[in-house]
């Protein structure tokens, strides 16, 4: 009894202390407040809005007033062939993209790092980072021009003796390659930055010793550079695999047309079309939520696997 009273008292005085400190810090607290308000409005209210996925929403009512329908929207998803087509396209495009964008930056970074002449190295970096800063609308407009019937691609093919005059953007069969390779073109150079930063921190005496022993460049890269970068490589692997269900809405909206749509529609653009164009808000939210959950599960699994491979150290 006595000890409990004591504890109550100490809890009470702790609260009092906390409130007193909080009051004294009112200036710092006023600095945090606008950020907290922003997060509540623009992040937490939409998270609450995910309850829409379990409701039947009509434009005339509010999220709160809409009736609950349980898992009905998710059951509809299972039978929706357009949804499964968009999943297929998303995973197909992502898979090509992620495999190339996982390996290529590692190779490019090593090659840039091995360039001996500093000004050349600088120029290569400046040029290859540039596309990262162009928007998908700009790149989309460029791609459509390159791929058009009298565009650059056909021009180059004609120089090589092929006589092709089709508009490649209207060919659904080629869309996956166009979508994934254009992303590689845009991001491969920029993807080298973290690897280059890591490599510049490798102890140079390793290389000196290896060179004394007569190890070739390739051998040095294989036995020193790559092992030293294993952590950052694992991190990128996790991010790659968990991105399998991510789709690029900007890219899809600008590149998709009525001819290539069967191969171009991805999950995001499907959510956009069903939700904002056709007005089926609840169903579109359910699709978005379902795919979001799959992505989190994938992220967790890959993290566990790399942890196992990486001496039980999480890289995330």
């Amino acid at each position, binding site marked *: 009894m006595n000890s409990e009273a004591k504890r109550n008292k100490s809890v009470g005085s702790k609260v009092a202390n906390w409130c007193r400190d909080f009051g004294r810090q009112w200036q710092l*607290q006023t600095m945090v407040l606008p950020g907290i308000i922003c997060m509540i409005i623009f992040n937490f209210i939409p998270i609450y809005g995910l309850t829409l996925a379990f409701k039947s929403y009509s434009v005339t009512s509010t999220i709160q007033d809409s009736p609950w329908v349980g898992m009905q929207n998710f059951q509809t998803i299972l039978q929706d062939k357009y949804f499964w087509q968009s999943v297929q396209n998303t995973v197909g495009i992502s898979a090509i993209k992620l495999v190339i964008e996982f390996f290529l930056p590692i190779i490019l970074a090593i090659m840039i790092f091995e360039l001996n002449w500093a000004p050349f190295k600088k120029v290569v970096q400046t040029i290859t980072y540039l596309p990262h800063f162009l928007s998908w609308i700009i790149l*989309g407009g460029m791609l459509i021009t390159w791929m058009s019937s009298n565009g650059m691609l056909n021009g180059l093919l004609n120089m090589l003796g092929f006589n092709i005059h089709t508009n490649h953007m209207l060919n659904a069969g080629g869309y996956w390659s166009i979508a994934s390779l254009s992303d590689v073109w845009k991001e491969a150079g920029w993807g080298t930055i973290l690897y280059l930063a890591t490599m510049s921190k490798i102890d140079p005496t390793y290389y000196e010793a290896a060179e004394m022993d007569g190890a070739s460049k390739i051998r040095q890269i294989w036995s020193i550079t790559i092992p030293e970068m294993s952590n950052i490589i694992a991190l990128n692997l996790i991010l790659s695999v968990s991105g399998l269900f991510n789709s690029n809405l900007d890219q899809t909206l600008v590149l998709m047309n009525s001819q290539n749509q069967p191969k171009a529609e991805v999950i995001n653009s499907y959510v956009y079309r069903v939700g904002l164009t056709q007005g089926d808000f609840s169903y579109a939210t359910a699709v978005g939520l379902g795919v*979001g959950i799959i992505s989190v599960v994938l992220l967790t699994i890959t993290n566990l696997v790399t942890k196992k491979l990486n001496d039980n150290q999480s890289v995330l």
Partner: protein
Amino acid sequence: MMLSKKQTKSNLSKVRKTKGNKVFDVVNVILMTLFSLIILIPMWNIVISSFADKNATSFVFWPSKLSIANYVSVFNDSGIWQSMFISAAKTIVGVIFHLFLCSIVAYALSKRRLRGRKLYSAMGIITMFFSGGMIPTYLLIKSLGLLNSFWVYILPAMFSYYDMVILMNFFRDIPDSLEESAKIDGASDWKIFFSIIVPLSKPALATIGLFHGVWQWNDFMTAKLYITNEALYPMQMRLYDIIVKSQAAAANGLNAQITIATSSKGVQLATIVVTMLPILVLYPFLQKYFVTGTMLGAVKE
């Protein structure tokens, strides 16, 4: 350290430059030149195509006839000037609001004695991993009355927990002793922030500001989702409109040049070049900020 490494490396390679390594170097330079050309040639093709006369025959590197007609018709369109103004305004206002909000929150959270700090951080981390997605966000924006309002470009993007963390880590590295004398003189936290912290943090603020600026300039999705009033279209949205309209015409088997006489291929290309010009011009000078900024974010995570 970088420098010493380079020196030792080059000394060593002078001493024992094996034949294999020489071959490696030559192949490396050739491949990297090729890689750069794969980026440059397509971009050159777009820029030079925008200057091509509409009667020029098919080409890759140089058209048979040059003309500035495309640019004349782009700049004669008053809608383009309106969009450029919106793009510039959303970039400038967006960066100012973003920097102000992220940096005051970052300053307060950089103080370990701040009460409620754990709760605030937990909230922020949740925002990094979970989001409501497109539809709930759209309904929120709609109920806030931000549809077809300029402020929809600024307010939802005003705070970013990620950028805040980068700034917070930067502020933590500023020695406390610099603030103490001001505190003894009775300066308020706000005064210390503006008179001591901000001037010392210019490089970090510049980096975050640049990234947000590029994002604002390139952002088209906000306009696509929330803006239907053409007077509020930024450049990216106007460009999207032009591209998608002529693509739709091509996909439906119509000749784009005939159906949309004003948005000919050439005008479309000139609009692309005008839209990316600010980035092309500024980027080489600002590259180092972008590189260090990326590393700040990754290393301090």
